């Protein structure tokens, strides 16, 4: 559709004075600005947005969505109850869980294997939101590298290792949930329920 010419407003450029027409004062002004920035950077008085990256790590916000970790509970066991909620929620289908009957009395199942393909992951954080027991979380580790595709597939041990490392460094992410968690995170009353004991 053509523009209605009645709606077009022409803005005339202002009439230039002799100094503007000379260009030279304007050029000098522009160069003064450029030179001011140059001096500021050289003397270190100006803004210094540059981070010397490998030596100087960026301070990321705690809710940054980076590499996953599998949390441990107080006894050091994997917190996950193998409910498959995260792998169901995952839009990239990068989480692969094999559940097995839990060897512990406070839950029915536990993940025998828990594999995340970090190359497929889109770091959306939906697994974190879906998890009823806060077992999976995204940390602020962003510089994930590997020499092969196999190295980028993280199994349970690796993911637990990420937990240990972040706890050691004190870079725990902000919890998705606060307060009391869902029923699956609570230990069953009176030990195992019937169904779980039947399974085991």
């Amino acid at each position, binding site marked *: 559709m053509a523009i209605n*010419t009645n709606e077009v407003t022409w803005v005339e450029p202002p009439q230039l004075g002799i100094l503007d*027409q000379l260009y030279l004062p304007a*050029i000098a002004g522009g160069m003064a600005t450029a030179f001011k920035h140059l001096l500021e*950077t050289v003397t270190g008085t100006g803004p210094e947005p540059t981070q010397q990256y490998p030596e100087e790590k960026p301070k990321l916000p705690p809710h940054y969505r980076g590499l996953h970790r599998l949390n441990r509970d107080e006894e050091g066991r994997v917190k996950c109850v193998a409910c498959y909620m995260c792998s169901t929620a995952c839009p990239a289908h990068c989480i692969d869980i094999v559940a097995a009957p839990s060897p512990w009395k406070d839950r029915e199942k536990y993940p025998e294997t828990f594999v995340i393909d970090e190359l497929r992951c889109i770091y959306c954080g939906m697994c974190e939101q879906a998890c009823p027991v806060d077992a999976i979380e995204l940390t602020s580790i962003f510089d994930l590298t590997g020499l092969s595709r196999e190295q980028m597939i993280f199994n349970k041990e690796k993911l637990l290792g990420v937990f240990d490392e972040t706890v050691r460094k004190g870079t725990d992410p902000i919890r998705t949930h606060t307060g009391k968690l869902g029923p699956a995170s609570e230990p069953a009353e009176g030990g195992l329920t019937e169904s779980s004991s039947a399974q085991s």
Partner: protein
Amino acid sequence: MNITELVVVLVTIGIVFAGVMTFVGYGSLLERKISAWVQDRIGPNRVGFDLNQPILGLFKGFFGLGQPLADGVKFFLKEEFIPKNVDKVFYFLAPAVALSTAMIAFAVVPFGSTSVVPPLVDNRIDLAVSQPNPNYQHRVYPRTHGELDKIRAANPFRSEILDQARNQNPNIELPKVAGFDLGRSEVRFGIAPHLDIGVLFVFAVSSLAVYGVVLAGWSSNSKYSLFGALRASAQLISYEIPMGMSILVVVFMVGSLNLQAIVEFQARHTWFIVYQPLGCLLFLTAIFAECNRLPFDLPECEQELVGGYHTEYSSMKFACFMMGEYTHMVTTSFLLVAMFFGGWNIPFLVTQDFPGGALGWGAKLVVFCGKMVAVIAFFMLVRWSLLRFRFDQLMGLAWKGLMTLGILNTVGAVVILQTRPLGELSLWLLPAWSVIALLAVTGYSMTRPKAPNRFRTGIKRVDQRLPSHQELVGNRV
């Protein structure tokens, strides 16, 4: 030419080539650093000389001084991609032409004091400015061209001129380094510093550089390259003219095209920036265009032409263009310094006879090269201050602006120098005339009607009669 002279010349060429190429490398680093600083960044600071060896850890980083070295290695190791449909002969010839013309132009540029040999100044012009300075009477000035020819015929190496000078005045001091008579052996800060057509030679050869650009653009068989080459040829040819005009008055006053003589003239009198501010401005603008630097980098503007004339070049052939361009910058910066900023001269600090001996030679070398680096830094600062011209603006500036100014400047200066209305003070009319000419041309340009706004006129025409859809397409369907 005997064998010693030949060896001296070859060694000089080798040293100069190595020096210029080194500077070209570090010029590119300086360019990147200045770009970074102006934009509040840090710039390359990683590549040092540690070669990834922990034992050399001290040289790690090092302000990125290893960067040019790494860049050079990269250029050599990159894939040499030759597009299928290029004109092979010219495609290979173009980078060679671009680099070699730039290097040849550098041959006559002095970069230090080359003046044990008396300057070949015609004293008539000297008289036109002021009486000959008695302090310099011990230097031999050939009074006529006949005398000059005689001296030259007697000895092509000129060292005999020194002997003559010594005969005339036994007290003349000739600089010595470690007991080595520099005067006789003619240590040279320049490959052919005594060429009497110096400036003309530089202009002639450096305008040959456009052949490299045109050949590259044509042989690449790519429209971007061709556009770049077309623009480059039009631009370089246009800006040759104001460039030549801007130095005419300097040449008139010195009476020589010899760069060495021009520098010595300024050392004896005043820098030409004082007498010729307008000429300096014109020359500066013209060399920006000649070097394809922003704001005149239309031949290779990335946004419109990918890379301009060197779009299809890769690896070392591309590097040849880059080196040619930087060499061109170095040459023109030396020219600017030599012609308008006194060359090696700093009043009262570094003059003709002070400091003497080897110290003086070194000081002059440092001052000359330091001024050149300052000019190049100025080039790079301008790059981040000004916007690129549109092509018609570029042409308009050269043909309407700079050329008018050049003519006015030259004519006015010649009239002043010939009539000398204020006697000894007449020289100060020159800068005054510069300002007057600049303001006059600017003022006149303001009275000119503006170019019609073709977009606005288009709208008006549509306004008068807006064709209906039926009229436009109805009959054709």
